[in-house]
């Protein structure tokens, strides 16, 4: 099974890096772009007996390691 995991800053957390990327985007002439949020993407291969077990494992992995839950949220899908 493959889990595709996205980790992003919580709304309200200031991300100067994303702001810098947006400024560069505008410098390149992409005036239609209004905002950019930068996050992290992980792909995790795992073997689990059921989808429920896989879900629980990935959720725990995100909470304990892949995301800093003070400032980040995560979402994932398992295929």
């Amino acid at each position, binding site marked *: 099974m493959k889990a595709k995991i996205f980790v992003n800053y919580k709304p309200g957390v200031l991300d100067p*890096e994303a702001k*810098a990327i947006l400024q560069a985007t505008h410098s390149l002439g992409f005036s239609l772009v209004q905002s950019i949020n930068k996050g992290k993407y992980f792909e995790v291969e795992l073997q689990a007996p059921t989808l429920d077990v896989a879900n629980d494992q990935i959720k725990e992995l995100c909470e304990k*390691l892949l995301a*800093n839950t*003070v*400032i980040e949220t995560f979402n994932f899908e398992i295929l």
Partner: protein
Amino acid sequence: MKFGIVVFPGSNCDQDCLSVIQNVFQCPVQTIWHKETTLPHVDVVILPGGFSYGDYLRPGAIAKVSPIMPAIVSFANKGGPVLGICNGFQILIEAGLLPGALMRNKGLKFLCQDVFLRLMNTGTPFTRKGSRTSGYAMPIAHMEGNYFIDSVGLKRLQDKGQVVFQYIDSQGRVTDLGNPNGSVFGIAGICNEKGNVLGLMPHPERVCESVLGGVDGKFIFESLL
């Protein structure tokens, strides 16, 4: 007082701490490799600066699952003094021993410079010999020193005296200009509720010998003796 300095792969300020404790303060000190599962008999644990695990994932994120960490958490929960400097502060935060988060500097640059600090709490084992009326000059060297906590958390820190160091300008005021990295409330260092765990971004071990430019960091080690 016996000191123990934890060394993770990528820690690089352990030798500075060791040298200061041995040569300036003449105290017994040993390094503790991160793979140990128990602490040797020490009175103070120091998590030094550096780039543990290359800052991979997030600074301190992987160090927090090192085998030595449960023993450090247990030591801290029993009231043992734990000092986290720079990457050490990041590790303490990731491990949940201190609240909040340390993020990328607001200006997006690695900062290598002297800062001025004011001491807000002389009630911890690391600051009892400090003064609340002096300014302290210490160097910082970090990319992720921007301390963040939400407004509820900040109020709790303020109410319980957990804000220990703040960045100040040359006039002694907490201002945006005096704040190198955008930390909320100008926070440079905090302690836990009990006051036995202190984390700070500046490097006091680099200002303990006048030949190296200053001695404003000495009081932190002196307080522990």
